[in-house]
């Protein structure tokens, strides 16, 4: 999941951009990833320069997808300078529809070591964006989260900072269909309580939302209990509560929910449910995935899938 770089994105094959080669592949079938490798880094290459080199290629005006990989291996450099560069070059990327900042494997950099920043200037700069994904919670903010066309927002962290939870609760994303948040662990920056998700779960904020992923969480049971009671369930086709420390407590609330059978798919992978509870879930009559059952006996030995 975060152990390898993307092979495909938006249905197209991903390849790394090499400024010396230029563009070799057709943008209808390929997505370019910009990355600074360990050896580029040792020799002092910078992501900003790579973005400029990419933007100078005339055909980039047709580019609809862009992936940013690793840009830094020391704590010196936040994403801010990349965001500024992309905003300066917004005319070169005016057709950008799908964007991912942080296609970085755990071996390249632990997720909690990725230095993010306020990414919201990107939403203003790229009005055609439909898909936005970011990895890494350190320093992350989405202070002005407004976008008319955005359909998918994916934020992967080992600890989602409270300001980002607030930013999303305040977001203006009328066309959002899929929201996926990796909440993470208290030791890596997660500080929110279930009440902080009230606007997201109960606020009717996202009228077109059909996929909700509140996952990788230390408060997975409370999230399950709250979502189970929410009318939001009626509009969802997928509920993704995977990667967290879901136990029988949260699972029972899901079973008891009158709206749970409206779902087409319930993802509970990486969980701490008992065999009995898994059997009940399996009989629910909808597609439920329950891979990776953890040791449910010891409450103190439960952990989210991605934290450090």
């Amino acid at each position: 999941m975060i152990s390898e770089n993307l092979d495909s994105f938006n249905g197209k094959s991903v390849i790394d951009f090499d400024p010396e080669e230029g563009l070799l592949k057709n943008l209808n079938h390929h997505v370019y990833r910009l990355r600074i490798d360990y050896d580029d880094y040792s020799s002092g290459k910078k992501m900003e320069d790579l973005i400029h080199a990419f933007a100078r290629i005339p055909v980039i005006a047709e580019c609809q997808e862009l992936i940013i990989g690793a840009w830094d291996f020391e704590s010196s450099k936040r994403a801010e300078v990349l965001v500024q560069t992309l905003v300066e070059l917004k005319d070169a990327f005016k057709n950008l529809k799908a964007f991912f900042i942080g296609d970085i494997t755990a071996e390249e950099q632990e997720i909690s070591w990725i230095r993010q920043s306020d990414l919201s200037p990107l939403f203003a700069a790229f009005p055609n964006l439909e898909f936005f994904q970011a990895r890494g919670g350190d320093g992350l903010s989405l202070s002005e989260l407004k976008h008319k066309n955005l359909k998918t927002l994916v934020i992967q962290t080992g600890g989602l900072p409270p300001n980002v939870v607030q930013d999303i609760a305040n977001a203006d994303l009328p066309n959002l269909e899929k929201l996926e948040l990796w909440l993470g662990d208290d030791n890596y920056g997660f500080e929110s309580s279930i009440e902080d998700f009230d606007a997201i779960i109960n606020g009717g904020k996202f009228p077109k939302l059909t996929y909700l992923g509140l996952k990788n969480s230390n408060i997975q049971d409370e999230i399950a209990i709250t979502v189970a009671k929410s009318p939001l369930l009626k509009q969802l086709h997928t509920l993704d509560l995977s990667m967290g420390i879901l136990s029988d407590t949260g699972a029972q609330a899901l079973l008891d929910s009158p709206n749970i059978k409206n779902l087409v798919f319930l993802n509970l992978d990486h969980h701490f449910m008992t065999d009995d509870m898994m059997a009940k879930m399996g009989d629910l009559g909808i597609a439920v995935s329950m891979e990776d059952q953890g040791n449910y006996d010891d409450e103190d030995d439960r952990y989210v899938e991605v934290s450090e």
Partner: protein
Amino acid sequence: MHFLLIGNPENRRVAAFVAEIEALKVHSYAVIAYQDLLDNTVDLAAHIRPNTIVKIDSPGENSAVRKGLIEYGATLSHPTNLTLLSDFGRITYQEEWYRGFCSFLPDLKARLLPFDVRLMNGVDSILTLFDKVATKAILTKNNVPTPLGLDNVRDYETLRTQMQARRMSSVFIKPAHGSSASGVVAFRTDGKRVQAISSVELVKEAQAIALYNSLKVRRYTDEATVIELINSILKGKTSIEQWIPKAAFNGLCYDFRVVVIAGKARHIVARTSKSPITNLHLGNSRGDLSAIVAHIGIAKFEAIKNVAEQTAACFPDCLYLGVDVLISANLKQIMVLEANAFGDLLPNLADAGENIYQAQISASVQKWSQ
């Protein structure tokens, strides 16, 4: 032909090699135990015939032989206190063991000299290959690509300074004479935070800390602990190289063990792992080689075989060699991580209808039959 195997008779390596010779029904063989050589109770002449091929196999996985080799190297100038030897799994005496091996093998070679024997793998190369620093130097001299190395690092502070100066954020620290990932530490920092990944288990004792081999790969993030761990490892001779993120497939990173026999890359496994330490005994497993080859493309796979063969060519007196090769996460760099004189224990793996031991036997026959 006649084969003479030097090993630990109770070990599966010896049993498997002997089984292959017996199955062929055309060769004779003898086995000499390391222990008997150490005890000097062997009449070599009784085990050797004209045109004998000698396979010096691993002395590993036998604590009495390990102790014997350490004592073999202990001299008046290097007296050795062996009190910690019975402490199972403890990482100790790696240098003393190597000193013993460096005395023992040349003595064995001298004893074999009067006879009509050929060594599958030469003594000098075996000893070089048990020194990762010396091995890397030879590979570098012969233009075999290896990760960038750091020299003259004997403590944590120097390590950090050198890493910063080279803009290197992650390194592998490997004891020069270790095997099977024993004492290997993968260390990285973002300038502030630190992380050490290792199968070493750190145990605090009254005066100091003790290091033990374990089968579990751990992550250490508390800097005081990381400093203790790294300073302990750096007390011995180590090889330090840049930690290059490995390519990944189906959620696991991988590298390759390529067994080169008679100059040709033959038996290959992809070692897949959740951690950057891919040794197969650490809960890692063989990956689906054909799927991985399809993923990286045949040209890169040929390049991987090629660097393994180049590595073997640096040790021309070795009939076979186990070479560990990585391909980087961006699929651009192919580098040699290690070369192993005893890296041929990969059961149930066929190339051109032969398993590794069968291939060694037929290569020997081809090379040395008169």
